[in-house]
């Protein structure tokens, strides 16, 4: 759904409706308030939509109904938007007691049932266009106020507003110059959604007989059709369907506009889901070669499709991780580290394609596998330790059930056996096995990263890919996690590809280090060689950037 398309359709419908409303006297074949034919007439050349119970022409009523429906809807929504915006701005900016009182009021209005509230006030106020507008505005301003206040509150936290306040600027100076322009874009979608609600409320009120009898709206037409049981005869086709469709199309126009605003505000809603693309070229049964390196990348080139043509993220990369070896991959952000990791996991986003080269994991050709074979490989032969330790675990499931999930995704084992395995794995990463029952929020950042490592080890992978495994952890915990990885590697003979922008992290854990710059490996060699005898200028820059304690001589 393209937001632009939705907005265009919505605006188109609206323009047509406004024209119909303004040109009603020219378009309508009859005066809708006078008897134009015999009552209950079926559609004919003289009356395209027939007549109602007193002989009014239904087509003319429909055309004139545009005026009342649009008028009540837009005026009520405008009033509600103005009131709501002012209340939201004041409450959000002034805060304190005024904010508390106003927001309590907003909460109360929002908690009351909308239509019954509208009806109760409407009945006492009496029928009429003006009272309808007032009643509807009274009921819907609160939603606008709440939204605006939230925007103002987040705006207040911005640096330039805080700076103004620190300099002693008064509210009457800051509000119109800095706050109002910033929240104005929010007001428009709020108004659009308010119109939508207002038109539907007007229809419901009119349907219940609380509309203005002298200015018939579509809701009034439906109310009369209901009272005369038009839907029990064929008359529903020309008496019930057209006004209802008119309401639906009008409301839809505003809903489409609101939808477009929301899509613009949240680009994620427009992006295709980040799922691995389906591939049909299936190369399945490759005999597992026990001597094959854990990871073998040769001549790998990856391109991303973008609006401005293909962008090459990785170019002719050769990289091998032998069994039991730890290779570090260092590079700045955007150098292609994550793309290489994603390629090794068979998790490249749909926009990326491998244009040349091969990727083998434990002798299996990742770059040509079917999606199903890749899924079977991931979490089994190759596992990932991701960079977001704090949010990498599902917050609503226990640590144990998440480890069990990884085990049962690849092995047919009983529940009890999988649970035992989960406890055993937690022990392996120096966590209390009783934590299988714990939820992620009960664990510290370091403990969560250990739990994620336990998940990665669940099926004895041949290769572990650690993507910035220590990011977001404090320095002491970083050291513990690196020590843990080091011990696991000794104990399990694990091969690892450790990705980091942080050279010291790699120096501490890796056997060899590969230096990545702009998608190419510019230098690769043992840690000592990279640290003490860097050859490539980029490597030298990286090494020089690390502060070192030089022993006093």
């Amino acid at each position: 759904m393209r937001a632009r398309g939705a907005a265009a359709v919505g605006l188109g419908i609206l323009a047509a409706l406004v024209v119909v409303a303004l040109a009603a006297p020219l378009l309508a074949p009859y005066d809708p308030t006078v008897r134009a034919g015999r009552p209950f007439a079926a559609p004919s050349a003289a009356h395209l939509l027939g007549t109602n119970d007193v002989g009014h022409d239904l087509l003319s009523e429909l055309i004139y109904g545009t005026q009342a429906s649009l008028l009540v809807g837009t005026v009520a929504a405008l009033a509600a938007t103005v009131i709501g915006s002012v209340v939201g701005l004041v409450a959000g900016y002034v805060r304190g007691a005024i904010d508390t009182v106003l927001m309590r009021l907003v909460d109360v209005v929002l908690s009351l049932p909308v239509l019954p509230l509208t009806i109760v006030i409407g009945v006492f106020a009496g029928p009429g266009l003006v009272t309808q507008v007032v009643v509807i505005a009274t009921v819907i301003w609160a939603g606008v106020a709440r939204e605006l206040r939230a925007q103002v509150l987040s705006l207040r936290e911005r640096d330039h507003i805080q700076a103004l306040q620190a300099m002693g600027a008064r509210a009457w100076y800051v509000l119109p110059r800095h706050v109002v322009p910033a929240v104005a874009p929010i007001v428009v979608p709020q108004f659009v959604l308010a119109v939508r609600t207002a038109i539907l409320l007007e229809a419901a009120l009119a349907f219940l007989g609380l509309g203005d009898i002298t200015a018939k709206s579509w809701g009034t037409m439906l109310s009369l059709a209901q009272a005369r049981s038009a839907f029990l005869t064929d008359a529903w086709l020309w008496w019930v369907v057209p006004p209802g469709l008119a309401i639906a199309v009008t409301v839809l126009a505003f809903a489409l506009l609101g939808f477009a605003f929301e899509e613009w505000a949240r680009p994620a809603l427009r992006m295709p889901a980040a799922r691995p693309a389906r591939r049909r070229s299936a190369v399945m049964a490759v005999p597992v070669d026990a001597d094959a390196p854990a990871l073998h990348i040769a001549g790998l080139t990856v391109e991303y499709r973008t609006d401005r043509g293909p962008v090459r993220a990785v170019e002719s990369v050769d990289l091998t991780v032998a069994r039991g070896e730890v290779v570090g991959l260092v590079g700045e952000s955007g150098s292609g580290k994550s793309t290489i990791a994603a390629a090794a996991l068979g998790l490249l986003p749909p926009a990326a394609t491998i244009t040349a080269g091969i990727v083998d994991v434990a002798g299996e050709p990742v770059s040509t596998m079917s999606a199903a074979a890749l899924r079977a490989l991931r979490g089994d032969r190759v596992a990932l330790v991701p960079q977001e330790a704090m949010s990498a675990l599902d917050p609503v499931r226990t640590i144990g059930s998440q480890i069990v999930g990884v085990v049962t995704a690849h092995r047919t084992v009983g529940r009890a056996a999988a649970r035992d395995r989960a406890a055993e794995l937690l022990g392996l990463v120096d966590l209390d096995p009783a934590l299988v029952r714990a939820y992620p929020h009960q664990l510290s950042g370091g403990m969560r990263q250990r739990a994620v490592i336990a998940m990665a080890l669940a099926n004895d992978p041949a290769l572990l890919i650690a993507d910035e495994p220590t990011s977001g952890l404090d320095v002491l915990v970083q050291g513990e996690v690196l020590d843990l990885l080091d011990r696991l590697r000794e104990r399990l003979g694990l091969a690892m590809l450790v990705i980091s922008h942080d050279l010291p992290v790699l120096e501490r854990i890796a056997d060899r280090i590969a230096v990545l710059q702009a998608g190419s490996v510019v230098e690769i060699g043992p840690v000592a060689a990279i640290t003490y005898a860097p050859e490539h200028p980029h490597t030298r820059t990286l090494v020089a950037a690390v502060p070192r304690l030089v022993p006093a001589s």
Partner: protein
Amino acid sequence: MPSRLRVLLPRVGQYLLVGWAAATLNFALPHLAPGDPVDYLYAGETLGLAPELREQIRAGYGLDRSIPEQYGAFWAGLARGELGTSVQYNRPVVDVLMDHLPWTVVLVGLATVASFVIGTALGAWAAWHRGTRRDAGAVVAMLALGSMPGFWIGMILIAVFAVALGWFPSYGAAPPDGSGIAWLGDVAARMALPLATLTLAGCAGVFMLARATMTTVLDEPFVRLARAMGLPEWRIAIGHALRNAVLPIYTYLTLELGVLLSGAVVVESVFAYPGLGRLIFEAVTVRDYPLLQGAFLLVTVGIIAANLLADLTYPLLDPRVRVAA
């Protein structure tokens, strides 16, 4: 758990405030509205009344006392469970409301569950396929559905399924007599169309929310990790993504309940379904003010009760508020 209480207590305070506001609005409206409150008590039948009689009625209802005194008496009456007398039924408003309440509770309850299930399932499906034609089609269909007035959907369903096809009865909730399975079957058949109407009118809102939350959750690191661990796609979708996306949708349900109760007012009127909504419609038509006010208060209290229920049951879904860190 004290931390739970700290969250819950302000909510309860908020609900008390809402209940107070609804009741006070009921008290204030007859006084604020143009004309004599006596007229509102007797649905305008008092218009030609002699001034002496009018004074007698005023004294009988305590309308000659000061506003604070009247307000006190109003709350004393509420505390005794008195909501006045219905003009139309000539019975205590409370009794009339209780006769009609069960039908609305069943109808709106079922519609809430149905629109939640359908809206969530479709919204999650659309988010899973977002950016594709399937997603666009679902969005357009749901926006269109949400743009139709509930009572109009009901009228169309009657014209098609009750009149033209004759599959379902179009009005009432239960035959006057009968028992056992046959009676229940008849009740179900009469509920089918109103239930379908309310569900159709209600699921669009749930759909849009479910699509938006599911989209957010699908980008969460834990979904990426589940994929990197080789979990089957359906287990990622249901076990992880949907399981998390359900949380905000569940809190939205109480808002949805307000929407559906509003829908019930007009939809029950179309189907002559003997619930609270139909009662409100009748009260409006004959200007039975005491009955209308009582119904408004009862609906408000119902929404508050549902909110409280949601607050109390939410921890069952979200361990972060159930288990302290």
